[in-house]
């Protein structure tokens, strides 16, 4: 199965810009389905980005983040070819992880 995580990381002038898109329903627990029943909460709670074992970015998310969440940030360091590790876990205990080469 294809990864749920898409990452674009590019390095320029010692700054690495990271963008990620994750496939996830991000159900808040406040939305009803077509039958009028509440769709139970199902959302990513933790998202981390690591380079060489060091966390460069960490998110705590609630159900208020949009479906298929998007995030963009930058950090100092990181060279072309370095591997960025990305992982998430949700409130139901599911998780996914991937690595992306910095371009």
């Amino acid at each position, binding site marked *: 199965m*294809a990864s749920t995580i898409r990452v*674009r990381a590019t390095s320029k002038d010692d700054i690495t810009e990271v*963008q990620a898109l994750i496939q996830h329903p991000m159900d808040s627990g406040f939305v009803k389905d077509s039958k009028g029943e509440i769709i139970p909460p199902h959302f990513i709670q933790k998202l981390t980005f690591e380079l060489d074992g060091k966390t460069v970015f960490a998110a705590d998310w609630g159900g208020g983040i949009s479906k*298929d969440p998007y995030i*963009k940030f930058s950090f100092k360091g990181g060279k072309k070819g370095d591997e960025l590790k990305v992982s998430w876990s949700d409130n139901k205990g599911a998780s996914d992880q991937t690595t992306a080469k910095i371009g």
Partner: protein
Amino acid sequence: MMTLRAAIRFGFSALALAALAVSLPALAADKIDPVADAKAFKKFFYEKFPKLKPEDFVNGPYSMDEGLHKQWVEKEEFPPYEFAVDLGKEMFTKPFKNGKTYEDCFPNKGIGIRQNYPLFDEKQGKVVTLELALNQCREANGEAPYNYVRDEMAALTAYMAFTSRGKPMDIKIPDDPRALEAYQMGKEYFYTRRGQLNFACSTCHVQSPGERVRTEVLAPALGIMNAMPIYRSEWNSMGTTSRRFVTCNSQTRGVPLTPQDDEYRNVEYYLSYVANGLPISGPGARP
């Protein structure tokens, strides 16, 4: 291109003359002239929105409203339809049970051909849209057809549109009276008011593009097909051309027809033809 259009016009003039000879009171207004239609259609929109470049129209409401445009640019940084494009690409080359793939059903293996759809298939005697062609491909290879309004169909068309990005829409009307009739029926459908709200497609997408109806900024009819399929924030998912037509009908309190009925295929034919020359921008993202 020019010669083709000239040929259409020529073929048609001959046909119209023949019609005149048979029924004397045929009015000039009743003559079917796609070339003149497309010219008038574009002129109307270019004059209504003098600041827009022709290629802006294919980005719909995002070209009409500055605040929306900014949100769109931000979304396009990592567009919500990207998962659909990836899925479509994967599906496109994955063999059916008989070992064949979608590639075997299309010219150039299906790459960069979206701008030629819908086309008038003279063998079938009807307009064939990309969605219909995909399901015909499935059925010819012993696979069950997909639901027309979402998911797999949206992913396949998203991928095919993606491979055609930037290519000018290139819809042909062959010298066949049935093709002209289909075009004309599509035009009639587009301008016909229906549903309890008494709205035609044109009520929203010709008379009021750029304005808000309730909460939505309406897209211009010109180039509206070039962006299909679309990821709509309102739907929280991808939708096909079929889905767009069906929801338009229900919003005017009309009972939608069945996806890919004659009327829907014909109106897609008409709307795509009058947008000839404008680039394919699909898959698109829409509010």
